[in-house]
């Protein structure tokens, strides 16, 4: 069969990384208008959640909600209608640590909230409660390849199901002793609102295809460190070109030897 190109238009972007609290501040650094200053990631309080869920919202939930809402607002999209793809290299690391610690103790009576927060789709569940979105919601993990995996399924929904889809790729840290085994340093993530048709709000068109080429890297060593240490930020070479309004083909890390070529054409 003739393959259908995996093409979508980007209408909105959400972004959080250490020292980069939103997409506008990331754009300023990508365009070399400001320098990247070392700082911990800032996670906004998810005011969209009802009070009970807001109290239970962990760092990873705050992160996913913040980037998703930023991208949707950027695109002026109706969040209650969006299909969503959540992709993360792990779930809530702090919650996982607390559960494992208690299950290794004499008192194994874990809290029900800890248990339901342990599922990989906790952020997706909170998103649904917050937005009332009943559209399909996919929750993916591919370890360091999680951004590419999420992008592939989001494009599948856009191209095959002709569905406007919000991709949220994000990662959060584990505390010790798991941190020594998996050293994601802080929270970071990107959200892309992807549409099947070009609209007045479209910023760029992307077409993704497999390749065995070597992934692009960031010339700024601090940004390169973020790219390699926070899996969702394997997207940085694409985001930098998008911020600069440049056209071109970017190779992103996925599952070596399979990498993803992204043909980016600004609108």
């Amino acid at each position, binding site marked *: 069969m003739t393959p259908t190109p995996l093409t979508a238009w980007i209408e909105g972007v959400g972004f959080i990384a250490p020292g980069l609290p939103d997409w506008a501040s990331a754009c300023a650094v990508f365009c070399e208008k400001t320098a990247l200053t070392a700082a911990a990631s800032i996670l906004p309080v998810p005011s969209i959640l009802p009070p009970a869920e807001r109290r239970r919202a962990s760092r990873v939930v705050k992160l996913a909600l913040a980037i998703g809402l930023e991208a949707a607002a950027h695109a002026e999209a109706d969040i209650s209608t969006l299909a969503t793809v959540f992709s993360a290299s792990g779930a809530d690391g702090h919650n996982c640590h607390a559960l494992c610690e208690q299950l290794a103790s004499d008192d194994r009576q874990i809290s029900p909230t800890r248990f339901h927060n342990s599922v990989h789709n906790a952020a997706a569940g909170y998103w649904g409660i917050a937005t009332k979105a009943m559209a399909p919601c996919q*929750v993916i993990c591919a370890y360091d390849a999680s951004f590419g995996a999420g992008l592939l399924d989001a494009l599948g929904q856009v191209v095959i199901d002709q569905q406007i889809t919000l991709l949220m790729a994000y990662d959060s840290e584990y505390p010790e002793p798991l941190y020594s085994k998996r050293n994601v340093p802080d929270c970071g993530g990107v959200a892309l609102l992807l549409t099947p048709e070009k609209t007045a709000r479209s910023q760029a068109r992307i077409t993704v295809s497999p390749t065995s080429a070597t992934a692009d890297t960031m010339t700024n060593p601090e940004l390169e460190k973020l790219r390699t240490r926070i899996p969702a930020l394997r997207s940085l070479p694409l985001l930098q070109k998008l911020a600069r309004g440049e056209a071109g083909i970017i190779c992103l890390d996925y599952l070596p030897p*399979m990498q993803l070529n992204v043909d980016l054409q600004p609108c």
Partner: protein
Amino acid sequence: MNPLLLSSYTATTSLGHGLDALLAGLREGRSGLQPCAFETVRLDTWIGEVAAVDAEKLPKSLARYDCRNNRLAQLGLEADGFAGRVRAAIARYGKSRVGVFLGTSTSGILQTELAYRQRDPASGALPDDFVYRTTHNFFSLTEFTRDYFGLEGPAMAISTACSSSAKVFAVAARQLASGLIDAAIVGGVDSLCLTTLYGFASLQLTSPTPCRPYDIARDGISVGEGAAFALLERAPDKPPAGSILLLGTGESSDAYHMSAPHPEGLGAKMAMAAALRSAHLNAADIDYINLHGTATPANDAAEGKAVAALFADQVPCSSTKGATGHTLGAAGAVEAIVCALALQHDLLPGSPNTENLDPTIPLQYLTQSRSGKVRHALSNSFGFGGSNCSLVLGVTQ
């Protein structure tokens, strides 16, 4: 959607290893549940444990993946000649043209639970031989399977709690439709661990007896484990008679509560309706429904309302969790394979342990297995966080 062929499939549950054991168990109305004696777990509940999981030895080159979940995965892959059929497909299409899409809710978390008992008393460090990436991480099962077959194509884990391995069929179908791949290994594996056993107990969702789906006295789930796989390929124009096809997928979100279903089953109804639309079928075309039917009071009441709203009491239906236990992230795939067996053998599976049906749920519920013509079957899977997925399968005449 364009129909996809399940060119090979297999399932391993507490009823036994492979399809023959599952089919015989379903026909005889047998339950694989036993009082919980797993590891050091002390809970008054029953579980569906797969025999001889820990006797499974991974190949030396894949030793880093060694954990209960991947042992169960290998046991499942090697049943019914499934691995051989996968290798034949790889030879046909190439190692970059076969994708891997697998569901799990807890992956190899048991490995981390055990490692936390062996922390260094001074530093608190985890033992040196504990490898997070290839055991605990949600991707471990998928990466193990990809490496087991030496594949170089797309792969991802889907983890939406108890709908995980139903949703993999939808994900794989999109990539097959786009032409990125020519075949997909789909399925799910979840294995017993302390997190889920103590976790469901903390929510007071585990039953002290073998679970009784749709019974008036139902009082919770029996946690199970399982491994189920299918090889999906684009269906030829005229598949041979007796071919099992994936005809439709439907997904929705409850947007209601983290660990309780929408009381009217609204999300469930949307997922079933979407699956029927995707299959270009009407409710009257469905001959059997494999219910999610966890045997919690809330799930069965909500699902019952949703199914009754779409199908009234016209379609024979049952939950097979009284036979296998709730295999959590593997349930979607296990029960898709139950539907495949129902289609292939004209079997309407019953519901072991269910004795007195809940009279407030107006469904044509099967307590006993019997034969009956099955041309199209629908399978429901719902998960924490309000994640719903329904699949429609059919058999060519």
